[in-house]
């Protein structure tokens, strides 16, 4: 994993803006710096500008303003075919009129490589994705997963240092997706290539990446390793977008260093950790993960604030229990508990008391 900021940046976006129509900015002031060998995922809802960023990096869109640098050199004016960037597309984009081997051979041919070299490289690339026996087939004769492996091999066969992937697993079923997620990460780390991966699937982003850039409205909202992103979202968009999340709204009544007190709109008082709130009286959305909610009083601090809750629904999900509660005026407050032998199963209608550690409850912008 390479996240140290002192390493020389391999891919760099500096104050990049992009507009298609001259009226609205699709990408607003993008700054991003990636070291060599990093697996970075651009995550965001559709229309958030992540694909546009990828296309600018690949050279299919030009930046309206700002610089994009690759290995220190500005590439704004270099046409796509000279950038030497591998790319994997959502629909695979395998050339249907060529066989698998011809597809893989194509980037080597346009680089004027000799026939024997080409064949050796194609074979190695096919073996790398465990598709050695499929060289003579046409793409249409392959399944979706097989096609994506070939597309991956084709993007890697000419040994690019940077590979871009635009939602490559979006069209596959869940199980295949998980297998390929693992394979892509393994290949990327084994080959030491730098990967920019675009997806709108947060699980994919969390499991595969060294760092994740969460996009929204043309800006990076947070750029952080997956654990930090999940556990310490810096604003309410990220908190909402990554993982499941309970939100309660209220007003800050006191701040003491690392903790603050929030008076919810229902009148209840809770403890929280101030993240991007600064003053007393400010409105806030407090965010708490469902698995960090505690209803076993003994596990909480003695002086912790608690809330009264009514169990509305209990859902058995195998590895976990998912319980819906009515808390402080909202009735979609979720609690997740592990299915352990000593775990208590709540029943609908039960009145309980819930609480949490103040550091698990983050007071974010309203």
């Amino acid at each position, binding site marked *: 994993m390479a996240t140290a900021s002192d390493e020389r940046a391999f891919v760099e976006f500096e104050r990049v803006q992009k507009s298609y129509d001259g009226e609205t900015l699709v990408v607003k002031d993008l700054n991003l710096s990636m070291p060599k060998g990093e697996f970075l995922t651009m995550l965001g809802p559709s229309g958030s500008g992540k694909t546009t960023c990828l296309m600018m990096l690949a*050279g299919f869109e030009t930046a309206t303003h700002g610089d994009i640098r690759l290995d220190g050199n500005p590439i704004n004016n270099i046409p*796509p*075919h000279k950038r030497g960037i*591998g790319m994997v597309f*959502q*629909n695979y*984009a395998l050339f249907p009129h060529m066989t698998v081997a011809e597809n893989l051979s194509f*980037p080597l041919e346009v680089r004027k490589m000799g026939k024997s070299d080409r064949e050796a490289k194609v074979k190695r690339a096919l073996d790398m994705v465990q598709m050695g026996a499929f060289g003579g087939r046409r793409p249409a004769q392959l399944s979706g997963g097989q096609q994506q492996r070939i597309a991956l091999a*084709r993007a890697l066969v000419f040994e690019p240092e940077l590979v871009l992937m635009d939602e490559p697993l979006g069209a596959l079923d869940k199980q295949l997706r998980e297998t390929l997620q693992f394979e892509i990460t393994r290949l990327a780390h084994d080959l030491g290539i730098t990967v920019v991966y675009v997806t709108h699937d947060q699980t994919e982003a969390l499991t595969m990446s060294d760092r994740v850039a969460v996009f929204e409205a043309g800006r990076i909202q947070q750029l952080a390793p997956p654990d930090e992103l999940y556990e310490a979202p810096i604003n309410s968009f990220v908190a909402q977008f990554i993982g499941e999340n309970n939100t309660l709204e209220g007003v800050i009544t006191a701040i003491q260093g690392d903790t603050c007190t929030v008076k919810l709109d229902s009148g209840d008082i809770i403890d929280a950790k101030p993240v991007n709130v600064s003053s007393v009286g400010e409105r806030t959305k407090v965010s708490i993960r469902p698995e960090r909610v505690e209803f076993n009083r003994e596990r909480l601090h003695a002086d912790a604030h608690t809330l009264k809750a009514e169990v509305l629904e209990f859902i058995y999900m195998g590895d976990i229990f998912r319980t819906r509660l009515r808390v402080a005026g909202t009735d979609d407050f979720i609690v997740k508990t592990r299915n352990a032998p000593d775990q208590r199963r709540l029943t609908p209608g039960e009145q309980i008391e819930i609480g949490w550690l103040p550091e698990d409850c983050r007071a974010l912008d309203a």
Partner: protein
Amino acid sequence: MTDATGPIVAADGRPLKASLSRALRREKLRAFLLILPLLAFVVISFIAPIFDMLFRSVQDDITSRTLPQTVVALNDWDYTGDARPSEQTYEALYFDMFMAAEAKKHTALGSRLNYETTGISSLFRQTGRGLDDVGEDVIEAMEDASAALDDSAFWAGLFLTDDRSAGDKAASARAWASTVSDQALSLPADVYLANAAEAALPNAARQYAAFAMFTHTVDEDVPAEEDPWEAVWIALAQDLTAGELAYDGPEAAELRAVQAAVAGPMADFTFTDAFLAQDDDWGEASVWGTIQTFSSPYTAGYFLTAIDLELTPDGAQAVEDDVAIYITLFWRTLWMSMTITFSCILLGYPIAWLMANLPDRSANLIMILVLLPFWTSLLVRTSAWKVLLQQQGVINDTLVWIGLVGDGSRLALINNATGTIIAMTHILLPFMILPLYSVMKGIPPSYLRAAKSLGATNWTAFWRVYFPQSVPGIGAGSILVFILSIGYYITPEIVGGTKGVFISNRIAYHISSSLNWGLAAALGTILLVVVLALYWAYDRIVGIDNVKLGG
């Protein structure tokens, strides 16, 4: 159900296949009923005419229908010898021609044979007019011998009877006369050909029967009240001079008187001399050779003509260079159609590419511009080209004004192949653009991007990745344009002059002006075969699976 040895059966014990087909029968029937109107329409208005056309191109029974006896008599005649046809042949010709002239069929045959040997048309027409004069002396002698012969009742009494037991003695006469006149002839009800007369005077009975049937069926008169044709008189004279008259039926006495009188004139009379007196051409071997050559009901003559050969009595021969036209026209049609197809690809491909890659709004605008010509009458578009292309037309004026060509050397853009190619390329362009566009629309832009990301230049990406995928569109467009242009008619007719017309213009000429439908059908058949052959070749080379009208 899973028994591996026997056939799989359904729950009720029937074989599963039978059950399935029974279950599907209703749906199949419904599907068939849905296509039935179109099927019937296509069969009646398309398939049937095509087969009729194919048949017409080899059918040539006008000679054998109009001169049935002559054709048979001519069988033994040898064209290569010097001898004229036999007297029997002229005799057969006389009776065939007389019947045909009465039915006004001889001129049609003359026109038909005139395609092959010039002059036959007028020969037939003149001879048709002169037939009444054949054997004048004989007929006069018969009239002098008995005044009764001028009375139509004499002939009716001699040949007709209402005695049912006489039976149908007129069958052979009816078959012959009906064939020549191309109508179903018959005697009036309850009138029969008399037995005794038929036995003693076979020729005259036959001719009278033909006359009586024709009078009854076509003229709608009563035969007994009409004077018989000269042919009947001549036939009677033949019968009376053939030998002893073994006849004692009605009018026997009159007949014997006539028999005595007619012997002299008949000794001087031959059909051969009579025809030669009409026109010397009846002694020409070329005329008889032509009749003999086209005496079969089926002919390869039209097809030979269609490839600049002619069927002569000596066999198939090349026509003289100055009348050879069809091979030239076929070649011109083919190469001009290919030129037009190629121009359409050159002009249409970029437009289709632009339409497929522009945003929908702009693409729709271009689409409307492409389709605009479709909404204008073909005639108007072609006439507009006439205005644009002529010597004093807009294009020439503009070129002169710019100074690209001198006023004295204006370009000849119309009434030649150039004009046809320009106008037809314009008219057929949408047929190229539309399939190209729909195929290109189905090629995702990510292919080009993928190729570029893999290191291909714009040109390589286009040529190696995009173009091969658009080939099915080119194929579909080319087939459409080529097949349409190979049979195009209106535009070459208007802007083509003489150097720019197609084979279809010649077909149209033979259909509507020269009325040589057989030749038109043969030309059309060759065109059809050429198209099918090209289609087959295309399938072998490119593969018809590679033709797509949509992505």
